[in-house]
């Protein structure tokens, strides 16, 4: 029992605490940043998510998630020069790091493993 707990704890410290697993929204935001590459910033990420998933998320939720991803080392950010159309404010652009790509791959693999062998009814048939 103790050994299992210790093993679980070490597993947690080595993987979860390092942020190697992505939450659902983190995954979506990371993929949006990846898709947008050089043009990824808060509002473009929000727009990309809305266009592709139909989810109308708030800009605050996007920034909070981007901050979390940056803290995990999955994205990096850089400030551009202020522009008049932004009310003289700087734009913060984001970029996926190597660790971010690894995290997406791991999550994708995990999801694929979980989906493997499952049979899905046709849309509307489950009602």
């Amino acid at each position, binding site marked *: 029992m103790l050994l299992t707990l210790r093993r679980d704890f070490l597993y947690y410290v080595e993987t979860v605490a390092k942020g190697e697993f992505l939450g659902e929204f983190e995954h979506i935001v990371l993929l949006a940043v990846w898709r947008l590459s050089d043009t990824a910033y808060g509002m473009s990420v929000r727009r990309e998510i809305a266009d592709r998933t139909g989810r109308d998320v708030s*800009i*605050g939720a996007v*920034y909070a998630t981007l901050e979390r991803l940056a803290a995990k080392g999955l994205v990096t950010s850089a400030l551009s020069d202020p522009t008049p159309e932004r009310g003289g404010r700087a*734009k913060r652009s984001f970029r996926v790091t190597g660790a971010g790509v690894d995290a997406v791959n791991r999550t994708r693999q995990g999801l694929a493993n979980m989906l493997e062998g499952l049979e899905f009814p046709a849309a509307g048939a489950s009602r």
Partner: protein
Amino acid sequence: MKPPLLMRALLLVVAGEAEAECVAGDLEEEFGQSSRSRCWYISQVTRSLLPLLLLRVRSGELSRILLGAVLGAALPLLLLDRLWCLIYSQIPLKDGVDRAPGFLAVNILAVTVCACISGFERRSLRQGASSAMLAMAAVGVALWACNGSAPAPYAVLVLLFAPAGSLLGSALRRFT
């Protein structure tokens, strides 16, 4: 058309300085380019407040500001009130003894100076504004917690001078 001023101010107060800069810039760009309605702007800001506030709490910035507000305004006020209560309890004939205006003036001055020192620790005017609002809230709680009955003009002055001191402190830091 300009975005609602109140919403912009709310965003600046709730989000940290760096986040508010980026979020407000993004919103303003979208608001100007895509001709979004004021309702859209208001909805985006109100829905963003909680995640941005939580982000600020996690970064530890909010707790530092809260600590500054408590140490800079509420604690001095409570300590001075305790001191006054002690002095008051030593007077044998309490009938007719009111809080001396001089003591209250010293009290207000001490709270303002403490709030000013606390505000000086803030890196920018925006952080100073957040600190000032929290200082006012902290003083409100302190006044409520004080045992002695605080005269109304004194309460109003303290409620005004504590945030003003905090703002003055952050302005001094910026301009010195």
